């Protein structure tokens, strides 16, 4: 058996290979979604099953898990064709097989050692534009994936080390951003090359048998760690339901429902009661759903490693009819909103089983907002960004104000960079008072963003959620504020009929669009919050005077200090 010290050393070395692949792509990528937002991931995968062996720590959290399905898709394709060879590299973006959405291109490369297939290396990155009806591929009105972009099944872009330019020609011809696409593709190839070099050096140093044994051992230890985590939760079934506003096509709410059962050291997540597949693009593929469960689990049990062992003691039940396991060509472009909701229901269920390990839900929508138009000289411009919101209150304190989405580690571009690049400017970029869910530990605040147009005309697109169902609190905590989007017309501000989804809104020079994002859910009962903490929230403008009375039953004097007799009265009344 491998000695435990060598195992600990190899664990670090293997993780470093994947991390270094991530870093290589981030530095050389051409598009900001990879370069700045780190919407990419790399890892090593099992030669037979495609299961995750090791994955980088700096890539997009949602890919931890999804990539195993992508590699499995290649394994099945290669088995069918029977022509897998050293030096091959497969490329594809089929979301129904490999997870997520069409924008994510996966490159999968078999690694041979002494003439035998040893494992796979894979790279995934979000490309800037892959065709479809809407630049950037966030089309809230898509009813088929054909409107979202090109779909490429697993094909070889390298055959036995020989590059096939014709494949890349096809890809470039189908993108509005062919140069960016080529740059990102090359960055991913470089990352795979580097991974091969580093892995070869490691195998030379320690021997393939030792590394293989270490990989197996790391998997079984991850499973053991996960089992030990689960056993600490009390047995029982914990139910949590949450809702999406609508699918962008039909204005009806969609239910994401979870029954989480703990039995000893085993956990079952049953999503059977979830809504059926829908017309619009908030469906997701089964692989995406599994990957998002993985993200939620890792946010709760932060120390579990990124390998397939973690899912061993976990069963996930997702019937084929639900919106969480759709097949082609059901649209999946807005997958981010749905997986955020999956993460929310996992938090909600865990909070019932183990309040001390949970937190209020985060703001729960990425708010993909774009403004597009033409300049006086005819040049096209598209400003596209995701916006932030509050994180949930948690056992150690209030939620983080203005954080990023749990599925991503992306930062937001500076206002000044956006203003220097596009004919618009911000009139507000501020925290949103009273948006944090009330609680013993308050939810973090969402934000207010307001933009004024400097050119004559522009079209506005928004893909968001939580306009009708606010981010819930846990353990008695209240909800954060709803997402709120308004746009200015000649006769005043309007609200989109679908709340937070709309295509092609026309605005004129001097008119504004105004977005207020949700705060996080609260943790624990608001009546248990220290009145002095409420007074401080008022002093800082996080909570209004009315909010203090309404949400916390705290009465404030004119100078902002706590009126203790009145507060006691209010709290007694509220408690009854």
């Amino acid at each position, binding site marked *: 058996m491998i000695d435990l010290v060598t195992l600990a050393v190899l664990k670090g070395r293997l993780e470093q290979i994947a991390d270094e692949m991530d870093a290589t792509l981030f530095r050389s990528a051409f598009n900001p979604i990879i370069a700045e937002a780190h919407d990419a991931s790399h890892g090593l995968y099992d030669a037979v099953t495609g299961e995750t062996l090791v994955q980088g720590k700096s890539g997009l959290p949602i890919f931890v898990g999804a990539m195993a399905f992508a590699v499995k898709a290649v394994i099945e394709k290669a088995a069918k064709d029977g022509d897998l060879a050293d030096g091959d590299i497969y490329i594809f973006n089929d979301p129904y097989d490999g997870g997520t959405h069409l924008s994510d291109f996966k490159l999968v490369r078999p690694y041979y050692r002494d003439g035998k297939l040893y494992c796979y290396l894979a790279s995934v990155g979000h490309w800037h534009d892959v065709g479809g009806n809407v630049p950037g591929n966030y089309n809230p009105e898509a009813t088929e994936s054909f409107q979202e972009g090109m779909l490429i099944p697993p094909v070889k872009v390298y055959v036995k080390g020989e590059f096939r330019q014709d494949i890349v020609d096809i890809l470039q011809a189908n993108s509005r951003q062919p140069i960016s696409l080529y740059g990102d593709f090359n960055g991913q190839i470089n990352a795979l090359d580097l991974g091969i070099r580093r892995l070869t050096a490691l195998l030379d140093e320690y021997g393939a048998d030792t590394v293989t044994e270490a990989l197996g051992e790391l998997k079984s230890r991850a499973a053991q760690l996960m089992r030990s985590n689960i056993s600490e939760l009390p047995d029982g079934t914990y139910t949590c339901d949450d809702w999406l506003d609508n699918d962008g096509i039909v204005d009806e709410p969609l239910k994401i429902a979870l029954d989480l059962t703990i039995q000893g050291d085993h956990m079952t997540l049953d999503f059977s009661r979830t809504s059926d597949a829908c017309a619009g693009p908030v469906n997701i593929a089964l692989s995406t759903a599994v990957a998002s469960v993985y993200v939620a689990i890792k946010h709760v049990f932060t120390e579990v490693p990124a390998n397939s062992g973690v899912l061993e003691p976990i069963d996930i039940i997702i019937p084929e009819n639900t919106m969480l396991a759709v097949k082609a060509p059901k649209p999946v472009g807005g997958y981010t909103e749905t997986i955020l909701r999956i993460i929310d229901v996992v938090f909600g269920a865990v909070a019932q089983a183990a309040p001390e390990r949970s937190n209020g839900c985060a703001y729960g929508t990425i708010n993909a907002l774009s403004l597009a138009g033409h300049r006086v000289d005819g040049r096209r411009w598209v400003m596209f960004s995701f*916006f932030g919101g509050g994180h949930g209150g948690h056992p150690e304190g209030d939620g983080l104000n203005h954080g990023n989405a749990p599925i991503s580690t992306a930062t937001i571009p500076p206002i000044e960079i956006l203003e*220097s690049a596009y004919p618009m400017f911000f009139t507000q970029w501020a925290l949103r008072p009273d948006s944090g869910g009330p609680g013993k530990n308050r939810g973090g605040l969402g934000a207010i963003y307001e933009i004024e147009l400097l050119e004559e005309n522009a079209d506005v697109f928004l893909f968001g959620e939580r306009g009708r169902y606010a981010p819930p609190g846990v353990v008695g905590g209240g909800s954060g504020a709803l997402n709120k989007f308004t746009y200015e017309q000649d006769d005043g501000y309007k609200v989109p009929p679908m709340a937070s989804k709309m295509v092609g809104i026309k605005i004129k020079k001097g008119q504004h669009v105004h977005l207020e994002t949700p705060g996080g859910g609260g943790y624990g009962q608001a009546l248990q919050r220290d009145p002095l903490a409420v007074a401080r929230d008022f002093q800082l403008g996080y909570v209004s005077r009315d909010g203090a009375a309404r949400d916390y039953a705290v009465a404030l004097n004119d100078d902002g200090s706590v009126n203790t007799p009145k507060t006691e009265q209010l709290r007694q009344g509220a408690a009854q």
Partner: protein
Amino acid sequence: MSTSSDKAAKKYIVGVDVGGTFTDVFFLDEATGECDVAKVPSTRPDQSVGFIEGIRKKVDDFSELATVVHGTTVGTNALLERKGAVTGIITTKGFRDALEMRRRDRPQTWGLWGQFEPVVPRDRRLEVGERTLADGTIHEAVDADEVKAAANQLLELGAESVCIVFINSYANADNENAALAAVREVWPNDHIVTSSEILPEIREFERTSTATLNAYLQPPIGNYLHRLETALGDDGFEGQVLIVQSNGGVMSVDTARRLPIRTALSGPAAGVIASAHIAVAAGFPNVITCDMGGTSFDVSLVAEGQSALSAQTNIDFGMVVRTPMIEITTIGAGGGSIAWVDRGGLLQIGPESAGSNPGPVCYGQGNDRPTVTDANVVLGRINADRPIGGKLDRLDVEAAKKAIMVHVGEPLDLDVMQAAEAVIRVANSKMAGAIRLVSIERGHNPNEFAGMPFGGGGALHAGALMKDVGLKNALVPRFPGVTSALGCTIADMRHDFVQTLNGVLGDLNVTQLDSQMTGLAGKGLNLLEEAGVSFGGIDTVFELDMSYMGQTHTVDVALPIIYEGGATGVSEEDIREAFEARYRQVYGRPLDGIAIRVLNLRVSVIGRRPKFDLSLLAPKGDASLESSHLGTRQVWVDGAWHEANIYERLPLPVGTIIPGPALLEQPDTTIFIEPDLTGLVDDFGNIVISRKPEA
């Protein structure tokens, strides 16, 4: 240094590094070329007390001091402990939360339990009506009365310093300057900062954070420097005081008072500068410096004698400082890092640390969880009867053994020696990971680098790290514990400037660029002149941050200009060629037919200070390997006991070869030469560790 006759009595250049535990002083007598060192406990809260005591250890008459160069942690501590001044912000209407909203991030990838407390709370961030657009157009002028009212409100709230930061002020600072004039009319002191003065660079959060932290540090750093100058002056000091900046250069006290944010990494930067200088002299232009402290392990890369600078540093989550700083990568593995077995049965080191109080188990101060230092004691690598630092008489080996057995040995089914060695192996592997991060991951070949430990702890691990990463050698300087103080005495004077241009090559007005370049260079040259220091030479370096249109990451492009006053002679063609060459170097192939963007101009003005001859440090006297032999000790390596020779390190003469296994002891560190390694005392008194030739 100085040639004027009235300063003939001023013979010492003194470097003072005030760390968390000790204040180290390095003395160089310019007349005789002799060096000396002193070490005294640091004093808190007033570091200037220990500072003066340290110098007085060797010099009584302060009129003999020509120059005192200081690496300080006053700024670092004030930032980390949030003990700066009560500060206010006056900003553009609609944007008072820019500081608190950051760039929409979170502290950890996994887990959503983050929190952030900005150094200026929301009620001291006030807004005024004004707006500048991205092209520099004033969309709305600022109203002086509104600004004065805001300033008065901040004073009522107890603010001692104030930062004025307006959106797009990098493109046009008129509104900020008008606001500055208005605030000056009512503000009772000089602690007024504008963002365009501190950092006229695009990116509002980074500029706001940097400028605000500067305002936050002005009062405490100003007070500290005042106390220091007064205390020195009381003892007859008439020379120059210089402060080490985070970029590894020094600045005058006046500049430090105005730009205290530049001291954020003052202490560690001096250590890296010294290491680079020692290494180059010793024939190792490529080194990776390793500073192993109680809770952390800091590494920094020096390639071709140049230390890497990073444009931006996160002092803490959300606490961003955007000024050039020596690039230091930190991981949580130090002597006090705790070893534990996770629930999956894997041995882990840190990030939890016992620090220096209670410290490792062997200190006997109440901690019962084993640390890296405990493992070193059990393995015989640390002399339990002669602890470093002098605070304790001896170390409790049995307690360390017991802790290792309970927390590591039993869970992993290892005996105590195996368990102790496992702790060291995993700790070494973690530290090796940090070294790989700054070397292999940046495209450097480790076989061309030497590892260079400084500080107290690193020299025990240097040999193992060298083997683990595949470094060519390890190089242990003669006085690892006072490296930073030594670095103070040799650091150059350096001033960095930035100005955002945000233009497209081709449309860029080259005449205007030339005047911006000479303007910033002139500012730097004036600062050098005002400091009253003589230089061996002055270098002016011009760089542009450039990219292809559409890319967000820029490359730093050094312009091939030798500046000697007058016009720079910069041309569009030079810029294009320099960009393409740099792009090829960084990414491979340059791209034809895509417009090229010029984002920022960076200018560095460097006054070269004379360096002293490091061979002055070399051991003198007639000691030998035999006469320095202190005895032997059993040391556990690779699963077996080895009998290691113990030597007094400092007297070992130049040219001595020390075969492993050996332990070299000196007051501030212990060096371990493993059985398969050998040490050599070089011409400067450094120990060069190499692999033994294959038998």
